[in-house]
């Protein structure tokens, strides 16, 4: 138990961690935008009157929610290049796995939000002559999104945590750089403590903010 912690080697390698952090943020932003955007489209697909579209959207959501995201990333990395003639680098594999997985989860959040708006709103919008696309963009979505902001923020936090899985296919992000430093300086304890702390410092304020937002919405509704 008399281990003497020594963070010196970690801080001497701050530059490697900074490169990793940049990789993490890059992956996070791409997956956040793609995941949420696609999620909204799929949520609308699940409400479509067209049966094949509805069926496909449901199948997509069920499949991506009921398989582990790491399996998805590895599938896109090792298996997909065999059937499609494109080069899949670790960044692309991670984007595909994490974005599609997040799209399935956020689709359910969007669907819940849209469903929570009273049918009277649709009827009222139709009565004053809006078509369904206009109703959706002007009336339903602005109200629905306000209600689901906490759930979407939670999803964002999950996506940020999920980016560490990209290290499995050797994409350069925080954890991957941590592994590198740990193997060069033989200090896994300090390295992984610092990495955990970095995630905690970035995400904890956001999590607090979600709690506050939830309380605020609960009161105003």
């Amino acid at each position, binding site marked *: *138990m008399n*281990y003497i912690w020594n963070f010196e080697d970690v801080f001497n390698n701050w530059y490697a961690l900074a490169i990793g952090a940049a990789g993490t943020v890059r992956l996070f932003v791409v997956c956040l935008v793609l995941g949420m955007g696609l999620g909204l489209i799929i949520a609308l697909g699940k409400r479509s009157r067209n049966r094949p579209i509805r069926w496909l959207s449901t199948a997509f959501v*069920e*499949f991506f929610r*009921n*398989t*582990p*995201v*790491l*399996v*998805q990333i*590895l*599938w896109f990395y*090792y*298996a997909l290049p*065999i*059937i499609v003639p494109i080069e899949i680098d670790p960044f692309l594999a991670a984007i595909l796995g994490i974005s599609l997985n997040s799209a399935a989860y956020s689709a359910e959040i969007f669907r819940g939000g849209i469903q929570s708006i009273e049918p009277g709103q649709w009827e009222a919008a139709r009565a004053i002559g809006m078509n369904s696309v206009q109703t959706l963009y002007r009336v339903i979505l602005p109200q629905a999104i306000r209600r689901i902001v906490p759930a979407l923020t939670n999803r964002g*936090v999950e996506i940020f*945590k*999920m*980016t*560490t*899985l990209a*290290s*499995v296919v050797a994409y350069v992000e925080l*954890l991957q750089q*941590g*592994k590198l430093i*740990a193997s060069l300086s033989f200090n*896994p*304890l*300090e390295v*992984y*403590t610092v*990495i*955990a702390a970095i*995630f*905690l410092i970035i*995400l*904890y304020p956001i*999590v607090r903010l979600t709690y506050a937002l939830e309380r605020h919405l609960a009161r105003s509704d």
Partner: protein
Amino acid sequence: MYEWDFSPVLAEGGFLLVGFRNTLILTGTALSGGLVVGLLLAFARLSEKRWLNVPAGVVIEVFRTTPPLVQLFWFYFGLPIVLNVEMTPFLAASLTFMIQSGAFFAEIFRAGIVSIERGQWEAAHAIGMTYNQCMRRIVLPQAVKRMFPSMMERSIELMKTTTLVATVSYADLLFQANELAQKTFRPLEVFTVVALIYFVSISFISFIASRMERRFAKSGEFTP
């Protein structure tokens, strides 16, 4: 055009089955431990004693806001250095996922307990029950029914999270798949089959869960 050929994968089916068994063992261990850890953390957090609720809050928040893969590496590569013990992949993974899912379960338990009306506590006090009796006999049985859907969701999340142990070489389903893909040079078929195994088993569990939820709802004891 690529020609799919599942026969090498099916010939080695037993290899994947071993992995699937290990996945179930790890999920079961982490789940039963996680429920206990979660209940203890929830009680500690609800306690009025500061030396109990502050540390419980810290554990819950730290494990909820850091990535599980970082936690696993910390327990597997870091912890043995401080404790001077030998760490096996299974032990590291069970510990990590017990505490990690425990942190999430704790919040579910806490929300469930808090959701029970104050009147129930007061009524139990009035007929002379102590805090512990009231918690065990009155509050928890009602809270558990309300918590059931989120508990099932968390358990399924846990099963999916166990795939991370493949990175520290525990022979779970994903690890076995990786080995088999290298052995047979058929990554497409292997990973597709493994994705399907996860899909079918997880869909089955959520199907059972939703059936049970409906049963609770019908029995009238379930108030959302």
